[in-house]
Every structure is written in C-alpha cells, then in structure tokens.
C-alpha cells in the first residue's frame, strides 16, 4: 500500500480535483439524518457523520431504476443504461466491506451490467469513522477496510493520512502531487494511536462464533414469534441494509399499450409477496417465517464473513426498534 498525507487546508482543492473524475457525492446532513448527496465543496459535507440512512449501495444497485424500454410494434428491447462517472467521498469501512460483498454477487457471478458498469465508473474515497452505540462492525471484522477503495482518508490533527488502494487512486494522487506530502514518522504514530483508540470505543458486541449453527438450532424457537409480534413487515431493515440486495421488477405500459418500460426497485424479504409462488402458495406466509428468513440470510456465512457488516442501520431505522444484536443474543440463549 502507498501512503501519503493531505494537509487539511488542501481538502477543498482535493475535492475540486475529484470533480474532474465525475460528480462528487458526500455525506450531507438533511434534517436529522445523513444522506450521500452531490456536493460542490468540502464544507457541504458532514464528515463526522454516524451513518447515512441509505447506504452507498444506492449508487450501484439503484433504489429504483429503469432496466430497459420495449416496443411491441417494433419488436425491440432497448437498453437505456447511461454511463456516468461519479466519486463517492467519505464511505465508512463497513460500507466498503458491504460493497465487496455485493461485488461477489453482482460482479463475480454472472455480472449484472448495471451494477458492474457503475462500479467501474466510480471512485471510492473511504473515510475513517468512530463507532456509536449501534455499531458492532468490529465483531464482524468489518471495522477496517483493507481494500475495496481507491483512496482512504484517516483524520489526523493537521491533515489526512491517505491510503492509496488502487491504480485509479494512485492516478489521482499523482495528479495532485502539489497538494500532498509524504507521510512522516509522527503521522504514522498518530495514525496508529488513533486506530488503537478507536478499537476501544466499541460498546456493542456480537458473538458470531458458530452463529450459523445457533440460527439453525433456533429454527423453531419462540424468539421469532416474540419479535414477529413487534414487526410491522415494513421492510425498512432490508432497504437500509448495505448488504441486502433483493429486488423486484415491474413492467409499465404506455398509453399506446404497445411500448413501455421495465423497472426494478429494491425489494424486501419482509414483505408478504416475497415468498409467493405460482398457485398462490406462499412459502413464508407469516411475519414469523419472514423474520426468521431474514436473520438466517443475514447470518449465513459467505466466505469468512456474514451477510452483515455491523453498521447498525437495521436497528436504528426499524420503526418498532427491533434490535438486531438483541435478537441474535436471544437466538443464542444469552438473554
């Protein structure tokens, strides 16, 4: 890895440079919440943000989008995907790790063109964060992004300790050579100390050892009923999750009844229709089954990590305050 230092006063010039690589998006405070929005300069961003409600997956697997148009008369399907270069500034490690999980599915296996193209057209600038009481990423090992970014900024007293994670990142760094400095011993020491301190800031623990078995063994547990009674089946947990990726598709016809478009939108396994098959049979007719399915899906092993990066969003944004970690503790019989 290559390391450089960006002095604080050069942040804006850095953002200016990033604009030449595409539209720059960063965490912005709107009302009481944070959202990745297009920005013009670094002052519009709230880099000390806790978490955005909608994770940065929205740039790649859009919340809703048109897949293509069709025309029966002409007999054609027409792709309407447009290339757009973007820079996403200030992504936290958990979200970077979540994107890596998404990549496995959306790029490594039968690539989804929409996702893949947008990933290739994006510059990812990571940003170091501090946990709040909902973060449990350190339990999942996702509190640090070892890769999956082009540049990663860690705050120092007078600047940013920058990790250069890719060719693309390196190209950017060489374009702004007059804005950056070499890292010095004191910077490294400061970075190390900050990371040590950050490790100690975590207050929420989730024991994931053997979690897959624990979930399988709790298949008939009362826990599901207890929480299903609280659950609205509103899907918020899935929609804000950086690793959830279910989608739904609908066709809309135009007034001429001959042409139209196919749309896709993020879906949620907490919704009733998700488990429906032909004949009206539903494999997950009740909220109990749907809630259990969600936790099993999140808690299944993919390589060495779960389908969860510990960002805490599903707990924060559940209108009925169902606590993800609490449920898994109950599954284990700890509570």
């Amino acid at each position, binding site marked *: 890895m290559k390391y450089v230092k960006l002095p604080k006063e050069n942040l804006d010039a850095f953002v200016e440079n990033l604009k030449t690589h595409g539209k720059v998006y960063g965490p912005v405070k709107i009302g009481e919440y944070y959202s990745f929005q297009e920005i013009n300069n670094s002052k519009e961003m709230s880099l000390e943000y806790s978490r955005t409600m909608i994770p940065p997956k929205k740039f790649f697997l859009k919340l809703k989008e048109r897949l293509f148009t*069709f025309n029966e008369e002409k007999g054609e399907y027409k792709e309407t995907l447009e290339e757009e270069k973007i820079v996403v500034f200030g992504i936290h490690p958990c979200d970077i790790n979540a994107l890596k999980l998404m990549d496995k599915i959306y790029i490594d296996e039968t690539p989804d063109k929409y996702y893949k193209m947008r990933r290739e057209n994006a510059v990812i600038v990571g940003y170091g964060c501090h946990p709040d009481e909902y973060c449990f990423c350190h339990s999942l090992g996702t509190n640090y992004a070892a890769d999956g970014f082009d540049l990663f900024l860690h705050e120092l007293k007078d600047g940013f300790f920058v990790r250069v994670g890719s060719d693309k990142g390196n190209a950017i760094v060489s374009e702004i050579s007059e804005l950056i400095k070499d890292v010095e011993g004191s910077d490294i020491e400061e970075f190390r100390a900050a990371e040590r301190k950050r490790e100690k800031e975590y207050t929420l623990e989730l024991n994931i050892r053997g979690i897959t078995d624990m979930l399988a063994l709790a298949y008939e547990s009362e826990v599901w009923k207890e929480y299903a009674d609280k659950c609205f089946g509103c899907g918020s947990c899935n929609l804000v999750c950086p690793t959830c990726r279910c*989608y739904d*598709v609908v*066709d809309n016809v135009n007034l001429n009844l001959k042409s139209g478009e196919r749309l896709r939108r993020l879906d949620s396994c907490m919704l009733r229709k998700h488990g429906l098959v032909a004949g009206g049979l539903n494999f997950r007719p009740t909220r109990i089954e749907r809630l259990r399915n969600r936790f*099993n899906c999140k808690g*299944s092993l993919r390589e060495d990590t779960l389908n969860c990066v510990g960002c805490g969003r599903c707990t924060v944004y559940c209108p009925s305050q169902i606590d993800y970690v609490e449920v898994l503790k109950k599954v284990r019989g700890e509570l």
Partner: protein
Amino acid sequence: MMENVLLPKLAKIVKSEKMTAIERFLQVEVLDKKFAEVFDYQPGQFIEVSIMGVGEAPISTCSIRTKKGVIDLCVRNVGRVTNAIHHLNIGSLIGIRGPYGNGFPMEEMEGSNLLLVAGGLGVAPLRSVLQYALKNRAKYKDITVFYGIRTYDTMLFRDEFYNLLAEGDKLGCKFYLSYEDSKDKQCISLEAEHSERCMCGVVTKLFERIKLSPEDTYAIICGPPIMYRFVVQELTKKQVPPEKIYMTLERRMKCGIGKCGHCIIGDGTSIKYVCKDGPVFTYWDALHTKGMI
C-alpha cells in the same frame, strides 16, 4: 460492449396448442441467428419468458434441443404472465433469457437405472430428461417413468404418453400412469386396456408395481410441493440414498441468476438460491437446508 444479461432476446411463437383447460404447449424460435447457434440447454434448466408490459416468468424447457434456436414450453395459466402467454398468437414476439439453473446431472447418472416420478405439470421438465435418456439409451440401464394425474382431462402430452403406455417397452422405457379420480371414465377404460401399467390412486401407489435396486438407481422427481414428501418417503423406505434422489423446485424469481433474492431458502448453515444452485436439488440438500420442501 459488456453483455446485459437482463435484456431479453426476441423470440417468435411458432406453435401454440391447447393441451388442457389450463395448460398450453408452445414452441418458440429465437430470432437472432447468432444467438440461435449457441443457444443450448440441458434437461432441468429453465428460461425466463418475458411478455412486454406484463413481466417475466421462469418456465422449464420441456424437450431436448432438436433444432437450433427452438424451445418447447408447457405453460400453466396461473397468473399475470402465464395468462398473457396463453393469449399469444402464432407469430407473436416474446422475450427470452437463459437458459438458467443447474439442470439434471445426466452424465453423473450414466450407467444407472433411472426412475422418473412426475405429478401434474411436473411432467414438463421430466419429459426432457426422458427424451435425453432415450436419445442416449445405451448410457443408462432401466428407465422407468411414473406419471400421476388427477383426471384424464388434466393429462399432458396425451398422445405421446398414451403411446408410451402401449409401446413404451419397445421404445426402451417402462411407463406407468396413476390417476386419482376413481370415477373418471376415460381413465377407467385406460386401466382396463393396460391394467399392468395404469392404476387408480396417488402416484406413490405405483411403487407397488416395481422392484427397485437402490444401489444403482437415481430417482428424479417433479410435481406439486406436497408430492415430494410422499415420494421421498417411499424412496427412503426402499433404501435409495438421499444424494441419489433429485428433485426440481419452484419459487418465485425475478432474475434467474442469483441476484434478486426471491428464491433464497435455508438457514444460517445452508442458504441456497433455487435459480442458480438449483432448481435441481438432491434430497440430501433438502435435509440440511431448511424450508426447501
């Protein structure tokens, strides 16, 4: 230019025949010549059929490929897309994507007996298995087919199976038929004609008629969800090992390629996508993946 797997390819309906009150046989031909050349599929695989303005539905191929770019489908009218398919005319355009899914392991099963158990519409994917095995007859030992129907009216591929009932042994397969409605006149007369091979009852009753050698038999099942449990019970009783029992599953799916998440089943220890890890699974998969059958 990268391929967009979600963009359907155009195909034309070349044949559309009513088979029963709710099922229709369709033959479609892909328009793009280059695509037709490479387009091939295995028994047990499926394609996503798109109807403009309505949506997509996964449909199994019900034959092996005989002509380049041509696919046979058998569609039951149960909802929006399938209803629209039923109302298409010859010459209508549809979209197709695929083939998807793992299909049946035809090579792994070489050298063994095959037992095909089909219920209702489940006979559609098994028909392609049968065609494949008969085409490669030498590679397999005994081929036995159980087909369960409710009434004569619901029987699919009637002429073809009627023929197998009568002449099957000559063509290299033992074909058995069961029917559920004991008052069905046509079935009763079929039974009278072929009492050896046709009987009244659920499909599992046919197990009374044969002897199974569990050590070299693969069972392949397809039918309504409830059928699986009973057939598997029967096979387990006869000592067929779980990993040699194959079945094909059905879930709602929007993509067919392991993205949309609708067909995910299982628990923490084993999560499967029906579309890409299946739709063909062994009974062993079902034993350790909760919620599969």
